[in-house]
């Protein structure tokens, strides 16, 4: 690990002032991604600004039924919180499907949003990787790409965003609140992540000196859930995941939110599928048509073409379970 200076920020004003003044500085939350990347020399900050003592650890109800989550709330606490479990089961389930209990106890909301890809070539300093070294090439495209993206890919990068939590936040229309010396701004999650295009090293709308201070989630009345498919039953990143909320009235879809994980460089909001579903009968046939519409532009590689069918089936299965629930089929006592 390259040596760095360490500053612990007592308040938000100090945190944003230090990050703006020090060239090549980075915030550290739980450290579960940054320490790993620094140890591999992929991240090499000169200054590390510790934000874990900032008073951004509240989960508050907002007028209008939404919830505001401080950026330093730990993943385990968010998943266990009464408001999240009752109003946004999809968010609680998504967090609990990720990493391990030890990691969730350390990981923060802000760090989870900004965790970097698990593409093995990104981690391997000897490999060509446009994300790590712009212009060097992409060893994943002709290499081992079982875990890689099928939607929104470019000729320069096919990496995925590995978060589970963020897939739920994408379905929930969350907003990210960020603060810098220039002031406060709000970025809808839909605009927060960038697709790789020709610049896969630019991943988000965040400036290097901006601090994530909170995430806001608007009210949700529809039943919701998260489903993750992976190589082992627990403690593995998603091959494909689906975050969904579905409301069915008199057999017709009256509200639907759908997002996919493991398939793109960002949590993928499935707008095409939603457009097919809204107003359609809540049947397997509609779910299948919606899933096909969403995955229609998908581009598979030799190792990951299976994800296209897997994503469609996981969408159908998740929506079916939610619609059965709103029809009272198999409802738990």
């Amino acid at each position, binding site marked *: *690990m*390259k*040596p*760095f*200076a*360490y500053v*612990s920020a007592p308040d938000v004003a100090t945190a944003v002032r230090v990050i703006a003044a020090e060239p090549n500085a980075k915030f*550290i939350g*739980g*450290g*579960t991604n940054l*320490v*790993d990347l*620094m*140890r591999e020399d992929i991240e090499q900050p000169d200054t*590390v600004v*510790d934000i*874990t003592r900032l008073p951004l650890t509240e989960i508050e109800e907002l007028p209008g039924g939404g919830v505001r989550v401080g950026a330093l709330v730990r993943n*385990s606490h968010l*998943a*266990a919180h009464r408001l999240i*479990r009752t109003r946004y089961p999809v968010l*609680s*389930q998504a967090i*609990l*499907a990720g*990493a*391990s*209990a*030890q*990691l969730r*106890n*350390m990981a923060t909301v802000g760090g989870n949003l900004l965790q970097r890809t698990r593409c093995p070539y990104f981690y391997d300093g000897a490999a060509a990787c446009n994300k790590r070294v712009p212009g060097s090439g992409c060893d994943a495209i002709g290499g081992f790409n079982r875990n890689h993206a099928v939607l929104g890919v470019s000729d320069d990068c096919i990496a995925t965003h590995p978060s589970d939590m963020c897939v739920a936040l994408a379905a929930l229309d969350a907003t990210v609140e960020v603060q810098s010396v220039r002031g406060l701004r709000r970025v809808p999650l839909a605009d927060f992540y960038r697709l790789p295009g020709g610049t896969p090293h630019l991943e988000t709308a965040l400036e290097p000196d901006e601090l994530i201070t909170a995430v806001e989630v608007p009210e949700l009345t529809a039943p919701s859930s998260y489903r993750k498919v992976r190589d082992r*039953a*627990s*403690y593995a990143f998603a091959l494909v995941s689906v975050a969904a909320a579905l409301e069915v009235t008199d057999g017709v879809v009256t509200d639907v939110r759908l997002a996919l994980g493991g398939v793109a460089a960002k949590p993928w909001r499935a707008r095409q599928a939603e457009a097919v579903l809204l107003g359609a009968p809540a049947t397997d046939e509609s779910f299948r048509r919606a899933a096909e519409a969403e995955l229609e532009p998908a581009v598979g590689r030799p190792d990951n073409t299976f994800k296209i069918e897997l994503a469609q089936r996981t969408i159908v299965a998740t929506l079916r379970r939610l619609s059965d629930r709103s029809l009272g089929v198999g409802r*738990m006592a």
Partner: protein
Amino acid sequence: MVTLRMRVNGTTRSLDIEPWVSLLDALREQLDLTGTKKGCDQGACGACTVLADGERINSCLALAVQYEDRDITTIEGITHPIQQAFIEHDGFQCGYCTSGQICSAIGMLAEHGAGMPSAVTEPGATGLSEAEIRERMSGNLCRCGAYNGIVDAIKEVAR
């Protein structure tokens, strides 16, 4: 070099360390508490699990400086019925993962007791079934495959 204090197994210790030293290396190499093991050094195996203010964490991904003034418990500071249960149920073979398993199990029992859910918790359910134990302990790998004994040991203590 940073000077900081930390409570380790109930005693306040002073450390002079570089900010890039992990909590795991600080415990093992500066405080000579070698009971906590380094498996992967990447957060992927759980061998380095310790308790920070009673919560289980992976000490390999923790910078020691971030834990200034915190209360750290390692296997050397633990006396708990789970230890005897591991012996009685053959919860280990080589023993390399065991200190992490035990710290993790203690943290897990506290989380469960506080009503924290896991990925397999059904709405309204409160028990610690075998499925619950396996899911909640999935952050601790055992290369010897002593999982059945580990689960039995935890079941006995949870009862």
